């Protein structure tokens, strides 16, 4: 019987010739990522060693990555204290993949990991962040865990008692129409599956629309698989994966491309023709409340946000800059843009995107997660309505339970910034 991608990766990582969905395994971890919640991981890690007489040492400091992104620069002395605690721990343990608050080499963890070549096909990646699903874009099995789970990984180098997830195969046919993007595909899929439709499962993406999609787009779709409850999303690695690793991540060795077997067994197969997709909008207050844009055209927007680990990459900014260049953000609407990494920020500067945004009236912020989850800048007032390229719209998500958040693609966000209402970018002739 053939294996899915995740079955193959978990078999290899747990030293077995074959595993199947439902088996319990303890895979070795290739990369363990945390951000500011590393402060909590440190507490739990130290707790494991309490009263044992043993020195608390991580299993392999070269396999731990810590990226400051949630509250950068620190918004409070409490956060600054957490960051300091992590900095001290990093130095003491000899952790090398550490990205502090810097203009060179800082950014959002789910951009830093691929950008610096930390993620490779066929590997096991865990992160104390639910959007760790993103890295399936490079053919890794990558999933979110809690801080205590991570403390155990730091101690043992493996994840304990993992049940091999079943897999939903999603075949994407056709070609995206103009101003329809991977974000629209994943919003459509989350709406179709519902918020719990893929709970405890992996979503494996196939088809011509995936094969022709750049890694930046694959990161978008894998990123948001967790919004359908998925343990992870995954794309079989291919020539595009090799191109990304070599050209954009500077990886010199050629990794093995581990794909699924032709006779792998899937829980469910879903086919989507992306040619038929129109721009999609997730409406308040759940990500699976997805409607085609025509259902919400004209909704007044107080704040537009472009950025995050979902849609803050260079091609997202390129789309937005093309639409916004020479135009103005509507009166009564504010626009915030935060690139996913400082490298992307610099590239956007050199290409003139940042100037186009600022001249249009947008505020370009430093790379980070803050506005997406309402922890650092960009908070909403009571009654405010936001339209964002981020990934979640739960009540209270952008810092205020009495506000509303709609989710969309960069093209929709940019077109709507000019009008101040939800606007179909296809109708503006840009």
């Amino acid at each position: 019987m053939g294996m899915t991608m995740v079955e193959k990766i978990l078999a290899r990582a747990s030293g077995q010739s074959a595993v199947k969905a439902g088996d319990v395994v303890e895979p070795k971890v290739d990369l363990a990522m945390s951000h500011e919640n590393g402060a909590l991981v440190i507490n739990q890690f130290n707790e494991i060693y309490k009263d044992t007489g043993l020195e608390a040492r991580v299993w392999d400091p070269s396999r731990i990555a810590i990226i400051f992104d949630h509250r950068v620069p620190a918004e409070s002395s409490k956060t600054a204290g957490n960051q300091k605690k992590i900095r001290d721990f990093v130095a003491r343990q000899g952790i090398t993949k550490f990205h502090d608050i810097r203009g060179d080499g800082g950014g959002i963890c789910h951009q830093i990991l691929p950008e610096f070549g930390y993620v490779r096909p066929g590997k096991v990646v865990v992160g104390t962040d639910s959007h760790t699903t993103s890295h399936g874009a490079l053919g890794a099995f990558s999933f979110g865990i809690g801080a205590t789970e991570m403390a155990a990984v730091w101690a043992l180098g493996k994840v304990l008692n993992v049940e091999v997830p079943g897999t939903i195969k999603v075949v994407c046919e056709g070609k995206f129409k103009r101003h329809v993007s991977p974000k629209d595909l994943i919003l459509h899929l989350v709406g179709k599956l519902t918020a719990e439709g893929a709970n405890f499962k992996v979503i494996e993406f196939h088809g011509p629309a995936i094969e022709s999609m750049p890694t930046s787009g694959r990161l978008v779709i894998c990123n948001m698989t967790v919004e359908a409850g998925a343990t992870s999303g995954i794309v079989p690695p291919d020539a595009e994966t090799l191109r990304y690793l070599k050209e954009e991540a500077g990886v010199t060795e050629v990794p093995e491309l581990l794909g699924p077997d032709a006779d792998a067994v899937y829980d469910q197969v879903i086919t989507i023709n992306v040619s038929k997709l129109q721009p999609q909008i997730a409406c308040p207050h759940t990500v699976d409340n997805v409607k085609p844009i025509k259902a919400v055209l004209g909704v007044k927007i107080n704040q537009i946000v472009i950025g995050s680990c979902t849609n803050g990459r260079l091609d997202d900014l390129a789309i937005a800059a093309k639409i916004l260049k020479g135009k103005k953000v509507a009166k009564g609407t504010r626009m915030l843009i935060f690139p996913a990494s400082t490298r992307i920020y610099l590239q956007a500067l050199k290409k003139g995107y940042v100037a186009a945004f600022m001249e249009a009236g947008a505020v370009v912020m430093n790379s980070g997660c803050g506005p997406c989850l309402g922890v650092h800048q960009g908070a909403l007032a009571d009654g405010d309505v936001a339209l964002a390229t981020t990934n979640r719209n739960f009540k209270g998500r952008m810092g205020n339970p009495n506000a509303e958040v709609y989710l969309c693609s960069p093209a929709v966000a940019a077109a709507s910034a000019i009008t101040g209402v939800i606007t179909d970018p296809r109708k503006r002739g840009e």
Partner: protein
Amino acid sequence: MANVVFKVGDDVSTDIIYPGRFMATVLPTETPQYAFIDYPEFNARIKKNEFPKGSIIVAGKNFGCGSSREQAASCLKGPDFVVVARNFSRIFMQNAINLGLKMVICPTIEANEGDDLEITAEQVVNQTSGKSFPLIPMPKARQAIIDAGGLIPFTRKLVLEAQGRG
């Protein structure tokens, strides 16, 4: 037997249970003050320690979806709530097991605030309505961690065994 002190619907996210704006607070002793803070009445009663240990929160499907933040589990563990839900989101469920927060998966549960529930190994009996509802056991893979009282003591034992001192 214990009392249902709070009832919520489907897809209650960690942004509801423990909003992101309080994520800089990490200590389990401090997180309960922000539990369900956007439900001010319930939150005020938590802060006043009004609920006896083992008080029940009843929820619909997919409880704890969204962020992996562990505070969403630790803020409910502090007051020692039991969460009875139709089902749980994966990361929340693992966090709860790891921290020793008691959860019951009961796909057909019907209960209202004020009802008294008795939870046995096989079912949840609503003493107020007289109806009973079968429960689903926790995933077998995680039972050893539940039995150890959480992932910290479980891992400590493994670390000591690796040193030949278990």
